[in-house]
């Protein structure tokens, strides 16, 4: 008889206790990692830089002649592209530090043909507090004079 009473008591408290834990878990989870306007987690990371850069042509093949020069202090990216690259239709690809995001977003082809006015993108840190604007300089491979 004692055993049965004990079982009923356990069952009586299981549900409320579970609900309290679930609520606590949800509150803690939502408090620690809020999300931004893009639905991405805002974290504690303040690091803010571009770790790699790629440039693809319409055929989704690289148009770079060599590795890009990324200066995280000057916030510049220098890329040399093959002679004859269609600069109006290129797909840039940025690799960023963890949790960072890019502004504006890249949604398709980008026109890099106005070499005098290089394109700019801003890297936003994981905590969304640090913003660093990178300038992408494109140079077209030149015909060798030798």
């Amino acid at each position, binding site marked *: 008889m004692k055993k049965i009473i004990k079982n009923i008591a356990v069952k009586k408290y299981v549900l409320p206790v579970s609900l309290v834990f679930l609520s606590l878990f949800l509150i803690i989870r939502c408090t620690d990692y809020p999300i931004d306007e893009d639905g991405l987690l805002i974290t504690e990371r303040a690091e803010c830089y571009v770790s790699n850069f790629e440039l693809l*042509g*319409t*055929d*989704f*093949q690289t148009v770079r002649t060599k590795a890009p020069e990324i200066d995280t202090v000057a916030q510049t990216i220098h890329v040399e592209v*093959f*002679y*004859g690259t*269609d600069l*109006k*239709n290129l797909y840039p690809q940025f690799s960023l530090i963890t949790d960072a995001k890019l502004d504006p977003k890249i949604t398709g*082809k980008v*026109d890099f043909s106005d070499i005098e006015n290089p394109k700019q993108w801003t890297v936003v840190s994981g905590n969304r507090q640090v913003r660093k604007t990178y300038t992408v300089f494109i140079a077209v*491979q*030149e*015909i*060798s004079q*030798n």
Partner: protein
Amino acid sequence: MKNIFFNICKLIFLAVIIVSCEETEYSIPELKPGLKNDCIKHSLGPNVLGQNIEFAYAMALKPEEGILLKAEVEASIAGAEGTYLENKSYYTNGSGINVGVEVGEASVSSGNKTTVTFNKDTCAATLRYFYKVPEEARGKMITFKFSATANNGESVSYEMGPYKVREMDMILDLVATNEEACYISISDMAVYNAAEAAEKPDNIDLVYLYRAIPGISFNHALVSPSAESQYLPEVVLPSNVNNKSKVIKAWNVQDQQLARLHYGVFVDDSDIEQIDFSNAADFAINMKKESGLWVETEDGKYRAYIFINKVKVDDSSEEMTLSLKRLQVK
């Protein structure tokens, strides 16, 4: 009480195992009487004008019931010249090679029907049917009715389709040579030399050239006649050849019908229609074997996908072998 229950369970379990493990002896399935037939479509991809749609039609009856007399295919639209039903039945030998055995007269086409009359004492055969898509079928649906007749009076039939014939045209293996036959016409689906190009300047959409320029990768190029001179080095265009075609480079679009390689990729009418040529370039240099090019003519009448089958450079010449699918969009 508990023990009795468990013992009964054990017995039932054992009985189930014994029954389920009983061997059933295999026997060859009994063939149902009568003439039977079946058909499969061999060819894959879009059905394009001038190309073959291929089927394999199988028919059989028991040897004691009779022999095959006739096999026939009726297409809803008569096939172009070159449509035929094979008079050989194939089997695969030990080396994996298909070996044909003649079982009937060469096929006869009359109107929409193509017929093979058997001349061998055979009760089973698989005949291949090649339907060459005619101009009348462009953009239409086509169906096929395969039928077989045996000498016991029995006949069977098998319907295939409907299949949509595409609007596009296709041509294979045009050869463009540097500084000779180097003027490519999308509208004519042909390659011309300078004299021919001068006679029809409005039809010239691209120029093929090969240049080995130090320090850069120019190599094989397909360039619009109106492109900047840096992309047409040392090229003297025939008079009035000045169309501004739009081009977009492509890679990994090895259309199976153009490449005749088994990549399982097919460029269809809708693919060509959906390409966005706004802001497209008018030159494409450093074109490689198995690369491709989407093209739109200056008047916007035609769009095409060009596949580079082969490029060649040797002491005597430089050339490019290309195949294309073309769609009239205006």
